[in-house]
């Protein structure tokens, strides 16, 4: 399988070097892989995810994502808009927009015609099982439904890679299970998924689990993913 994410000696410091969030991370992910990164709070999982998604730049080291050198790329906005889909623990949907309108938000950057944006958003809501909720504002949706809208939003521009940060952290177990099933379905369609979680039960749905501590990857476990 082609390698889609590769990092070498990735270091990220804050506070002028006083806080070392990443301390020489080496990671390789192949296209279509579903990996999970586990570790205690503050071990650098989210920082790593932010760097892989072009939200932040490393202090040193190398990082290549879908043939883009993120240390050298000048325009990371375009990279994020086209190649990456983010799902966060907090869905952060815009409260005054309907589910369908929220899904269209990333598409505004690609200048698609309004009608096309709407049709595409409706298809994505069908994909996550929310076709009958497309005109609902977030306050009228359950926590699980909101997270599904956030997944549809992450898929809006057809990214190859989904970066997922504690997606079930705020959900009950039934909703969490439904959300994980969506990620498994997306992975079956060869979408690469990098999931960050401190929940072992969630991480075990991935085919590879990396364990992080103090900004380093300590262990890698290959397993048979449960679909």
């Amino acid at each position: 399988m082609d390698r889609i994410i590769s990092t070498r000696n990735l270091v990220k410091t804050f506070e002028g070097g006083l806080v070392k969030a990443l301390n020489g991370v080496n990671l390789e992910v192949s296209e279509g892989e579903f990996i999970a990164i586990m570790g205690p709070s503050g071990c650098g999982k989210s920082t790593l995810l932010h760097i892989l998604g072009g939200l932040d730049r490393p202090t040193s080291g190398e990082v290549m994502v879908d043939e883009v050198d993120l240390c050298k790329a000048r325009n990371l906005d375009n990279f994020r808009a086209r190649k990456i889909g983010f799902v966060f623990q907090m869905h952060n949907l815009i409260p005054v927009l309907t589910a369908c309108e929220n899904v269209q938000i990333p598409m505004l950057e690609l200048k698609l015609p309004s009608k096309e944006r709407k049709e595409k958003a409706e298809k994505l809501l069908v994909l996550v099982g929310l076709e009958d909720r497309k005109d609902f504002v977030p306050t009228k949706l359950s926590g699980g439904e909101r997270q599904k809208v956030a997944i549809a939003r992450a898929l809006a521009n057809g990214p190859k890679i989904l970066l997922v940060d504690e997606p079930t952290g705020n959900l009950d177990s039934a909703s969490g299970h439904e959300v994980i099933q969506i990620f498994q379905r997306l992975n079956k369609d060869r979408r690469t998924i990098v999931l960050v979680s401190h929940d072992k039960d969630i991480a075990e749905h991935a085919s590879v689990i990396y364990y992080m501590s103090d900004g380093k990857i300590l262990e890698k476990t290959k397993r048979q993913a449960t679909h």
Partner: protein
Amino acid sequence: MRFLTLILKNILRRKTRSAFTVLGISIGIATIIALGALMKGVTSGMEGVLKTGKADFSVAQSGIADFSFSRINENRTGEIQALEGVKKAAGVLMGIYPIEGNPYVFIWGVKNEDLQMFGVNIVNGSSFSQEHELIIGEVASKDMGKKVGDKLVLRQEEFNITGVFETGSIYQDKGAALSLKKLQEMEKKEGYVMVIYVELEEGANLEEICQRIEERFPDLVTIKSASELGKVDRGLEIMDAASLAVSFLAILIGGVGVTNTMMMSIYERTREIGVLRAVGWRRKRILSMILGESILLCVFSVLIGSLFGVVGVKLLTIQPLIRGIIEPMYTMDTFGRAFVVAFAVGLIGGLYPAYRASKLSPSEALRYE
């Protein structure tokens, strides 16, 4: 969904806060509209008086702060008429009298033979011929419910109304005219007029004659157009300066209000802005969104402020103290000025918050609690 829809929905999130911001700016806009309309009304009224009837220009006393203070020796009328190129010159006096609850009614003293020169067109009845006769403006006639044959009392003296006239100038049509001699006597200004109207011979050079008059009579000044009203009325210039100052204050106060509203809004939406950056929105789009919101707030303010301004002026001009003196005039220029001010408020007030929002690091914004 369009980008504009998002901007509109964003400002409707905090309806009360947005409403108060709009209200604050609207008050500034209403003041600009009101002052502008009143200024235009006063200028137009003054212009109507100074360029009335057949007059090509008018002559007043130089160096005065207010047109009503002008005092010219009546002999100057004949001297100006004798100038080459001048067809006719007519001296007119003005007094302000309280009549039947209206404290400011303009009474014009004019010679019977100069009425046409003064722009008077008698629409009912006939002109005055006796000392205690007068003709009344069409608007004043309707306002006061006076008609030909009725009486009008000016400072305990009773006058018969012999005719109703119209000139097209509000200051004249809301007043009355009687013989120059009688008004000079009542005003204790025998031998003086306030303004001299001058009609030129065909082909005469206006500029050259005005220059000649000002050189020959240094105590006089000529007024050819509205732009020269400042020569005889500093009040208009002061009002214009006040209007500009209010516009500037409106920009300043409104701008601070908009900045405050938008800053609060972006603090509340920091994580959301982080998500927008995460899904690929460029800084420029974040900047456009926040600026769009502040400009849209100000566009709403123009609409509401214009309404406030028009209603406010209406309420003001029906007050007995003001009624009849100022007739507001609404022009596109007035509303255009208000729109430009509001747009500037939106742009200036929104610029800093928009810049701050666009400069947010997506990673830090997502961590914001």
